[in-house]
């Protein structure tokens, strides 16, 4: 049951990304390039997502526990530290370079978009490199 619900959430998330146009790195670049012919799409995508999810979040977390898990796993850290900012900045360099963030990267694998496989493979290598580094430095 849990697997089915999770699969459905992934499917709906992917359809949302496709409908929004955000699987096209040209549109993402159009948003990030504020000095060019600015394409505000991504702001509307985030606005739509935030309107729905911010309201639902308040309702869902009042339930006491989720439907198919023991308890809520909401991040509780509040520290603004170097890892958070450095990680976001490194991600930002890669996002600016390619116009691709993790969600669209995975959806584009299914689409069979040009360059999707190499990006996804490199992304996995980057994540595994982080895990190796974190376990060695005791940070993760």
């Amino acid at each position: 049951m849990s697997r089915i619900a999770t699969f459905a959430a992934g499917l709906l998330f992917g359809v949302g990304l496709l409908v929004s146009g955000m699987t096209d790195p040209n549109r993402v670049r159009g948003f990030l390039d504020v000095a060019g012919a600015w394409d505000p799409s991504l702001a509307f995508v985030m606005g739509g997502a935030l309107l729905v999810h911010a309201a639902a979040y308040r309702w869902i977390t009042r339930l006491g526990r989720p439907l198919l898990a023991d308890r809520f796993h909401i991040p509780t850290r509040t520290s603004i530290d170097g890892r958070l900012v450095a990680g976001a900045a490194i991600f930002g360099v890669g996002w600016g370079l390619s116009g691709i963030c993790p969600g669209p990267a995975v959806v584009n694998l299914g689409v069979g978009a040009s360059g999707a496989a190499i990006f996804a493979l490199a992304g996995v290598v980057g994540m595994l490199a982080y895990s190796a580094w974190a376990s060695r430095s005791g940070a993760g």
Partner: protein
Amino acid sequence: MNVAMDAAGFLRAALGGALIGAAASLYLLTRGAPAGVSSIVGDALEKGSPGRRDAFAFVGGLVVAGLLGGIFVPSLRAVAPVASLPALAVAGLLVGFGTRLGSGCTSGHGVCGLSRFSLRSLIATLTFMFVAGVMTYAIVHGGNGS
């Protein structure tokens, strides 16, 4: 400022965003966790992680959405990358490493984190958007006069 967008594009973007918000809500309602794609992929890659099978199911849903999209909307397959293959490989490495170091990406910080008014997620979102904007400016407008 030059704005390149039409009414249909505006509607599609907002509707797609609402679907993403609904998907994140379904995930929170059932699994009790934020639907951050980088964190979920990270779980899928981690041997012995308790949520590994669920993580695979979510990633599978994303891939199947792409498969169906590619079949029913062939134009999606014709979308061209904005960077060369070597640049995509470098970008993938940075996105993979950076999102794990920073504990989230556009979905985890940008959608889920901002929805619960997390200051960490706000800082992360502002940081990756600003840095990506600077990168984009350098690439699009900074070349050797090209």
